[in-house]
């Protein structure tokens, strides 16, 4: 009798191998191994945005997406967005830049409030009133963000998280206001809009890598670093599969479906 369900053996092996690699690397980082993650241009973009906001006397706008919840598949993107928001809040607290943050997730809101509180306290300051605004999901969120950016003439916008169709609205509003923009989402259908409209796009996985870089938590660094060998393996397997398919040698393709 088969222990593993037929057709899922390779998936199981990949799962076990990935988890084992992550565990090993997290352990290594905790023991002091230095892991260097590439600093993304978008993070420098955030620093530039805050500096620009202080110079111009205009606020910075932050939002973490108009869809999803902490209980759904989009939760990781929301949490990545919160990390970027926390970094931005720290920078704004440091340089006394005005920050307007909009959130539309009732379950993420307490997390954002707590993180912003900690970020401002780090610099011995209090979060100014009306920094974090709650606008419910849907068109009210889309139009609310757009009008806030335009009305307040934001000097910069940071938008990281799971975005749906509001991505194009909000990015265009930032463009109209003349804001410097950092935006990223792992929702593939919206990546193209951000790539076309913003100055520092974060494409797909970049938001997780950026969040790991900003948090400097061993668990996050270890897992981000641990993904690389498997991505490389995916490239090699894709090439081998391409070659084997074209040479009519189906062994690899058959192997991948056991």
């Amino acid at each position, binding site marked *: *009798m088969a222990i593993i*369900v037929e057709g899922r053996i390779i998936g199981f092996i990949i799962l076990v191998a990935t988890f084992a690699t992550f565990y090993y690397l997290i352990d290594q980082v905790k023991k002091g191994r230095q892991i260097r993650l590439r600093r993304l241009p978008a993070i420098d973009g955030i620093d530039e945005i805050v500096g620009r906001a202080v110079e111009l006397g205009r606020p910075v706008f932050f939002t973490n997406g108009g869809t999803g919840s902490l209980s759904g598949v989009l939760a990781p993107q929301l949490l990545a967005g919160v990390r970027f928001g926390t970094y931005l809040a720290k920078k704004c607290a440091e340089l006394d830049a005005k920050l307007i943050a909009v959130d539309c997730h009732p379950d993420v809101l307490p997390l954002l409030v707590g993180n912003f509180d900690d970020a401002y306290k780090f610099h011995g300051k209090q979060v100014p009133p009306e920094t974090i605004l709650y606008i419910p999901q849907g068109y009210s969120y889309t139009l609310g963000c757009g009008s806030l950016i335009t009305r307040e003439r934001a000097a910069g916008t940071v938008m990281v998280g799971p975005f749906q169709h509001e991505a194009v609205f909000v990015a265009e509003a930032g463009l109209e206001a003349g804001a410097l923009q950092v935006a990223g989402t792992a929702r593939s259908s919206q990546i193209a809009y951000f790539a076309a409209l913003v100055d520092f796009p974060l494409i*797909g996985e970049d938001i997780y890598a950026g969040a790991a870089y900003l948090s400097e938590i061993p668990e996050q660094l270890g897992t981000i670093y641990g993904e690389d060998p498997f991505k490389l393996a995916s490239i090699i397997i894709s090439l081998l599969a391409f070659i084997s398919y074209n040479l009519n040698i189906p062994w690899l393709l058959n192997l991948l479906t056991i």
Partner: protein
Amino acid sequence: MSQLTKKSTPVMITFIIGFFTILVYFIALPSSVTEASSTLNGWATTIVALAIGFGTIVLLRTHTMRVMQRRKGEWVYSIVIIIGILIFPLLYLTIGPNSYLYKTFYSTVNATIGASIYGLVLFTLVGGMYRTFRAKRLNGLLLMISACLVMLQIAPIGDAIWSGFPILGSWLMDYPTVGVYRGIMIASAFGALAICFRTLLGYEGGHVSGGGE
């Protein structure tokens, strides 16, 4: 409740349920075990439904406070929002969702407003494209050419102007686009695995703690 219990109990529940769900997917287990997994899925659906209700309660509370505080320039709109939130549940509970009034109200108010606002995407998108699709650099030029080819592939007028446009547009959608998105999907899948791992072992504490690390 001690801090340890506050944090470790949810993490333990997350680990047990998550590990069990993964196990059921990969390991050939007796049907009684797989049925237990189906039951858990049903419970999760119920919890999500409660979360939706929670969001509505937060919204009602926020706007009721604005009305009570008579916030300048806002409290009138808050009344409109409160009416909007309450009217559909009231109609649902009194006359039901299949009644003529409910359906009419939905199609003339909700559906119309939603469709109109979504229609604004066209103008916003064209305005954005007009400003950004400038061939100042090579990637800008490539972006513009790709966008034009795909548009001419979708619109029948492309085929009427030149039969090659749909072929080029289809090639662009079928090969480079598919290749790129497959790459993004594979990378995102490993990212999701990483987050799954951290969540199962309690390293991803965001959904557990109130804030900070």
